[in-house]
């Protein structure tokens, strides 16, 4: 049974297709693993074992009947709790949505269900995806499987930890400023943020509408390509959804895995490195670059001078949009409803009491920031200026992509820090996303693949960025690097992670 949970999604899918194993068995194995390790990891907020087993049984039956199935049919998956799931509690990590059971599915969930992937449960996250450590969840911390005293990254720490701890072979994450890529980096997993608009946002509880994008969280680059293809593609319910079909990502990953990157131009972004980055992080990054060179890539240095302002612009645009997106949580229609302790029970006072009690400090901080940034008299100086910076960053990318086919950087400046270490220092927490945020501001796709261990023995991530709509390049380069590194390591990085103590 333990082997089933350690298989990649692709390997498991093959085993299912060849009927060496049933989906029910695979699903049971993962539910057993969750029962064993999740008390320590706390990757899941909600486990829906019965639903998952029912889906698995249906897939097994369909397979037995000879039905034409999706390649990933029967492979279990975990879904970040920011994604709306019909009939399954969805909280986005917030107390304000405690008890809310959505009456509809997000488009990507509809696609997952149509393909026959049993949904194991919903994963923990920073409240409304605001954070880089999952410590801002309203429902407790998630622990990094490499070291339970450390953060699993955020906001999608639950999805990354679930995949890293073999509690799911696949997971869905969302990435507004790095919430897929940074957790992947610090847990030794793979996470990709697709081109903005290539995966439907319908049914994602919005943090910042112009930045949010859902994507795959997996243990291998090929698995990520498969999941990305499954959830991607046009959706008329999302106006910002791209009309073009998703490129052939699986083919790109396979091509990359051959290890041939001849002629590929790899741009190292000057501004994403150096000061503030741990030596071990920079060392692994340099070694990875050498491997890409060995594979035939040509490494060039490119400058993106406005990246310096990305974090500042991001922390105006995100709170501004979030302050509006989160206005709907008012206790009037769903979720938590708090009546004021004394005084009249008016709509306005119920809204205030509900929001006061239901939102955590980080959420309140950003709502206040965003409300201020959009206020009359301040709009131009803050939101308006931030949008101009955004345009400049897009131009930086455009210029850089004339000189390089992909851009690369460390995914995060540091390895996983200790739980609680940065909780009272929001600015230092925000700096975790300094390398991932520019991609969201420009809408370009990015991936993080494991690059090895830092000086502290904790995982380091390598980030690849590609032009808009060229998500296939992420998978080609990511798979090439993954293959080269695994050859060097003699297996996946996660094999070096300490065994988790199994609950009885």
């Amino acid at each position, binding site marked *: 049974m333990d082997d089933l949970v350690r298989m990649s999604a692709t390997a498991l899918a093959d085993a299912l297709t060849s009927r060496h194993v049933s989906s029910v068995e695979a699903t049971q194995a993962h539910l057993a693993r969750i029962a064993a390790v999740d008390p320590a990891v706390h990757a899941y907020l909600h486990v829906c074992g019965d639903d998952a087993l029912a889906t698995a049984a249906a897939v097994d039956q369909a397979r037995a009947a000879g039905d034409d199935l999706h390649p990933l049919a029967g492979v279990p998956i975990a879904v970040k709790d920011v*994604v*709306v799931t019909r009939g399954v509690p*969805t909280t*986005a990590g917030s107390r304000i*949505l405690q008890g*809310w059971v*959505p*009456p*509809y599915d*997000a488009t990507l969930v509809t696609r997952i269900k149509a393909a026959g992937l049993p949904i194991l449960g919903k994963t923990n996250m920073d409240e409304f995806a605001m954070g880089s450590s999952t410590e801002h969840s309203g429902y407790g911390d998630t622990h990094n499987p490499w070291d339970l005293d450390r953060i699993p990254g955020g906001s999608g720490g639950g999805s990354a930890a679930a995949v890293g701890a073999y509690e799911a072979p696949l997971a869905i994450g969302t990435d507004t400023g790095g919430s897929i890529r940074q957790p992947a980096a610090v847990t030794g997993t793979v996470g990709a943020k697709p081109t903005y608009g290539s995966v439907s*946002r*319908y*049914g*994602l*509880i*919005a943090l*910042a*509408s*112009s930045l949010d994008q859902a994507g795959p969280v997996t243990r291998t680059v090929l698995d990520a390509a498969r999941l990305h293809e499954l959830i991607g593609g046009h959706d*008329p*319910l*999302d*106006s*910002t959804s791209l009309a073009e079909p998703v490129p052939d990502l699986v083919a790109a990953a396979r091509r990359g895995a051959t290890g041939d990157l001849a002629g590929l131009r790899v741009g190292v972004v000057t501004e994403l490195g150096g000061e503030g980055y741990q030596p071990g992080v920079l060392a692994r990054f340099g070694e990875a670059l050498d491997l890409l060179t060995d594979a035939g890539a040509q490494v060039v240095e490119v400058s993106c001078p406005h990246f310096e302002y990305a974090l500042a612009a991001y922390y105006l645009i995100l709170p*501004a*949009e979030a*302050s*509006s997106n989160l*206005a*709907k*949580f*008012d206790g*009037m*229609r*769903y979720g938590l409803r708090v009546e004021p302790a004394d005084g009249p029970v008016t*709509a*306005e006072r119920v*809204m205030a009491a509900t929001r006061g009690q239901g939102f955590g400090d980080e959420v309140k901080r950003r709502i206040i920031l965003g*409300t201020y940034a*959009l*206020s*009359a008299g301040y*709009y131009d100086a803050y*939101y308006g200026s931030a949008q101009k910076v955004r345009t400049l960053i897009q131009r930086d990318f455009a210029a850089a992509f004339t000189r390089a086919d992909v851009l690369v950087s460390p995914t995060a400046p540091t390895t996983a820090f200790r739980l609680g270490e940065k909780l009272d220092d929001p600015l230092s927490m925000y700096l975790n996303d300094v390398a991932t945020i520019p991609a969201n501001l420009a809408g370009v796709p990015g991936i993080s693949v494991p690059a090895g261990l830092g000086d502290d023995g904790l995982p380091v991530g390598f980030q690849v960025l590609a032009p808009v709509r060229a998500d296939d390049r992420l998978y080609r380069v990511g798979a090439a690097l993954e293959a080269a590194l695994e050859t060097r390591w003699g297996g996946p990085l996660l094999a070096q992670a300490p065994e988790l103590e199994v609950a009885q």
Partner: protein
Amino acid sequence: MSALVDYDDAVRRYDPVLGIEVHVELGTRTKMFDGAEQSFGAEPNTQVTPVSLGLPGALPAVNGTAVEYAVRIGLAMNCQIATSCRFARKNYFYPDVPKNFQTSQYDEPIASGGWVDVELEDGTVFRVLIERAHMEEDAGKNTHVGGEGGRIHGADYSLVDYNRAGVPLVEIVTKPIEGAGDRAPEVARAYVQTLRDMFRALGVSEARMERGNVRADVNVSLRPSPDAPLGTRTETKNVNSFRAVERAVRHEISRQAAVLDAGEVVVQETRHWHEDRAVTSPGRIKSDAEDYRYFPEPDLVPIVPDPAWVEQIRASLPELPAARRRRLATEWGYADAEMRDVVNAGAVELIEATVAAGVTPAAARKWWMGELARTAKDRDTELDALPITPAQIGQLQHLVDDGTLTDKLARQVLEGVLSGEGDPEQVVAARGLAVVSDDGPLLEAIDAALAAQPDIAAKIRSGNLGPVGAIIGAVMKATRGQADAARVRELVVERVTNT
């Protein structure tokens, strides 16, 4: 509250300036941003989706038909249609706004800079300049239970119906309406009425005032003279009938004049119109202007109307009411004043249909503006609410033209139709009202009348035809009005001369 200044006095000393915002609900099958159907009178909260309820994760998608309707409205008002425009979020907390922001247009409306010619009752044409027309979504509907007069203040609880949430609206904003002088209330009314007629002609809305399909917010300010700077305005919200628009403007002019006369300042505020008492009362004070924190709606991409598509819509615009009226007046040969009366009486469509039923325009006008207008007035109703159709008028006129009915008999038949006795032919048959065209019975009646009134008979025989009317009257009475009076006169004269 200050007393009111007499209206005539007020407009002698102050120059009123108006600004009118009209909201029209578009008659699209589905809502502005989602697939929920919209129709009047459905059970509360049955026409909703995750989008119209603002559920977490739901996203808007623009209704293309609503955009087309907005373009039609813009073109009909001679506006420029934007080559690219965006939606914006207007942020404010209120339970009938499910997302706690309204998706509207802010600095980039779909249409801007046009004009609407408004015809007043005496035929004067007043041009109202249009600032802009923009698209937005309606809010839900609150019902406050237990409070006084349905107000939220003092209510025990409130119910919200989200069926209306997300219904597409176009808001039309005028530029300041200057130069209307003492006719400002009339201009305001005629403007809203012109828009209502235009919405119907364009087929973009049923435009029923009583259902709130069309709602007007009326801004009024006064200044000492037309060359003085604009005064402080008040905005009277949700004035929802033509009559109320006129009265509300009139009232605000009188009220503001009183405030200014007293040396006080007009407070910039929203006001409520009270139909029962014909007054406005203060609502929210607007001076500490609400900050709606507008910003471009990130969930929607810009709308970029294809210029060729816009031209196609322009080419297919139906004839607008004013142009149609001009055309019909010419076709029907009505004088300006006659046409104006017809328009004011709401009889254009009725006469058009009556003419189509084979009645001459002159006769059609005579029916609708004569007997039927009187009946409508007596019954305190509108012409189109009378239980008679243009086809029935056509049949009636035909009976007159072929001599079956005299004008007098026709009026009796009309009365029968209006009483629900059926089509004119049925009334004629049932009441036995056809003209007596056989001279025999008429001669008998004439002889009887002459015999009954020998004095008169003698006078007539002596050549004095003056009292012949008395004989005719007696004959008409005897035949229950079914005689042709002209024929009776001929026969009387013949009879007297020959004996």
